[in-house]
């Protein structure tokens, strides 16, 4: 159905805060829907569900036992406008970690339950690779509503029962035929996803060290990746008031696996790069058939200060593995 920008804006604002990407690419609550760029913003939408910093509990230091006040999950209803398919699909991966019984993260669940995802279709750029993972820039399977921008508004399709219910409350414009979903882009040299088992079998391949030479483990790729989800717990205090926090962590940091006692299994820089590739392209697919730990958003390629290309790494190592397997066979 067609829907005008004003109508959509009014309907979303009525629900509650509307989160949109700011000019700087960060998610902010607004009253008016902005013009969006052609592709995903710099910060992934996971910021609204697994924020960089979240309070878990607080208490006061003093004599006697502390009275711990757990933080209340935020159940404010609202919506997110401008979710791209790659970021939305990434949330499905995060769901597997944070919504799976018996350990359900109540804060994550509260946000997932209360934030309506309004997707916007993309005009893919040179580092967009959603096609590698079997979906495209119009994909509506992971959002509640998918919008295709038009001259005077949007064409809206529902992607979920919740989205359907929302659209039913909105003043509908004319029903229009929906174009077929476009295929997603891939790198021109891409031949296919790596075989997770073959990757793992080559854990000690010397090529990892070669690939690792050009990586400085700055961690920017991990910081901006929509599927990366590792976190740590830390306390901050001020004048006797103590706050326990859940903070986003980064496996590229040299101390990520350092243990009390000083032992660090991933001291060598190349081993941390290998870990990132293995986690996304081997461990996750092996443990969750049908899923890959990446959705092709391309931020790692755009933001790497050393101009590395993580997809090219994956491609190159698989090519080497396959060549060697053929020689043996």
């Amino acid at each position, binding site marked *: 159905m067609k829907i005008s920008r004003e109508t959509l804006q009014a309907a979303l604002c009525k629900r509650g805060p509307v989160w949109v990407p700011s000019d700087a690419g960060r998610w902010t609550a607004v009253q008016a829907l902005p013009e969006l760029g052609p592709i995903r913003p710099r910060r992934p939408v996971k910021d609204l569900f697994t924020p960089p*910093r979240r309070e878990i509990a607080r208490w006061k230091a003093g004599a006697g036992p502390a009275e711990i006040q757990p933080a209340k999950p935020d159940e404010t209803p609202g919506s997110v406008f401008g979710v791209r398919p790659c970021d939305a699909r990434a949330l499905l991966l995060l769901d597997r970690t944070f919504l799976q019984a018996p350990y359900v993260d109540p804060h994550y669940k509260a946000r997932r339950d209360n934030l309506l995802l309004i997707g916007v279709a993309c005009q893919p750029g040179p580092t967009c690779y959603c096609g590698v993972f079997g979906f495209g820039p119009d994909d509506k399977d992971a959002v509640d509503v998918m919008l295709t921008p038009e001259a005077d508004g949007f064409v809206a399709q529902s992607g979920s029962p919740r989205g359907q219910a929302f659209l039913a409350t909105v003043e509908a414009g004319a029903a229009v035929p929906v174009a077929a979903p476009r295929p997603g882009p891939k790198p021109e040299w891409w031949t296919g996803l790596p075989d997770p088992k073959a990757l793992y079998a080559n854990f000690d391949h010397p090529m990892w060290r070669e690939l690792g*030479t050009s990586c400085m483990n700055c961690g920017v790729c991990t910081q901006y990746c929509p599927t990366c989800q590792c976190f740590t717990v830390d306390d901050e205090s001020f004048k006797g008031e103590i706050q326990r926090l859940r903070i986003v962590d980064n496996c590229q940091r040299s101390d990520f696996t350092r243990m009390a006692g000083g032992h660090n299994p991933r001291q060598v820089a190349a081993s941390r790069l290998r870990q990132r590739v293995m986690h996304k392209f081997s461990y996750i697919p092996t443990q969750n058939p049908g899923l890959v730990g990446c959705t092709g958003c391309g931020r790692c390629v755009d933001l790497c200060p050393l101009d590395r*290309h993580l997809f090219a790494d994956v491609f190159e190592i698989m090519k080497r593995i396959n060549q060697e397997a053929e020689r043996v066979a």
Partner: protein
Amino acid sequence: MNQALREAVKHLFAEGKVKSVLGYREHPLSKAVVATLITRPEDADTLIFDDRCVQNLARGLSRDLPLPVGIVVKGCDGRAVSMRITEGDFAREQIVAIAVACPGVKADGKNLDERCQRCEMHVSPLADVTVGDVSALPKPEKTRAETIAKIKAMTPAERFEFWQKAFEPCTHCYACREVCPLCSCTVCVTDQNSPRWIEQTAKPSSNLMWHMIRAFHHAGRCVDCGECQRACPEGVPMHLLDLCLAEDVEELFDFKTGIKQGGKWPFLMFDPQDPDSWLGGPHRG
């Protein structure tokens, strides 16, 4: 230039002077310039040097590499390697500096980098082999003092406001730390939690603490390669603070980082003539 560089590297391998070489190559798939480590002389044919070679390879030096390691260095990179030798991370014999005559690089592909416009040292002071024509290198178009003049002219309140805004986007990702060739502490101060000197989460006070302490740790050690600012995904201009302190260190101690090998860093020594006037009073432009 590429041919001369490749010949020089092959020569080093042939003479047994290096077991590996850190250099730049063009990635066959993405076509971007990336760092590479070669261990065989025939791979020297992948090495390049042109104005796309922005990265500071000194960060990639580690004792895990097959030593002695050759490293392709621009002026700034060579000063960083020199500092790491001065600070005892490497013995002089473990490094073979392949100094290239660098006319400046262009990170955006069009304009000369800001730091290159100020560069007074286009060729590494640490040079075992020199490649390229060192006689025809450009003179600086501006000075460091000019770059920081706008901050010098501000009042304290204006300065504080400036830095608060500058550091506001910081997410404590520490990419600036990871790409800096001089950030080599085994355990970074940010990772210490007993006591917790710097809070890990982003807010005005902790952002300021991190960048101030970072700048202080680099006082007299920063070689103005600008990698920190280039790596920052949020565009925080932390390098400007490094430049402010570099001016002070040069003025107070007459010390230019990484020019002489060996010798001592100014904080590890003193001069009985050091004046007491250093301890008091504001610093105004």
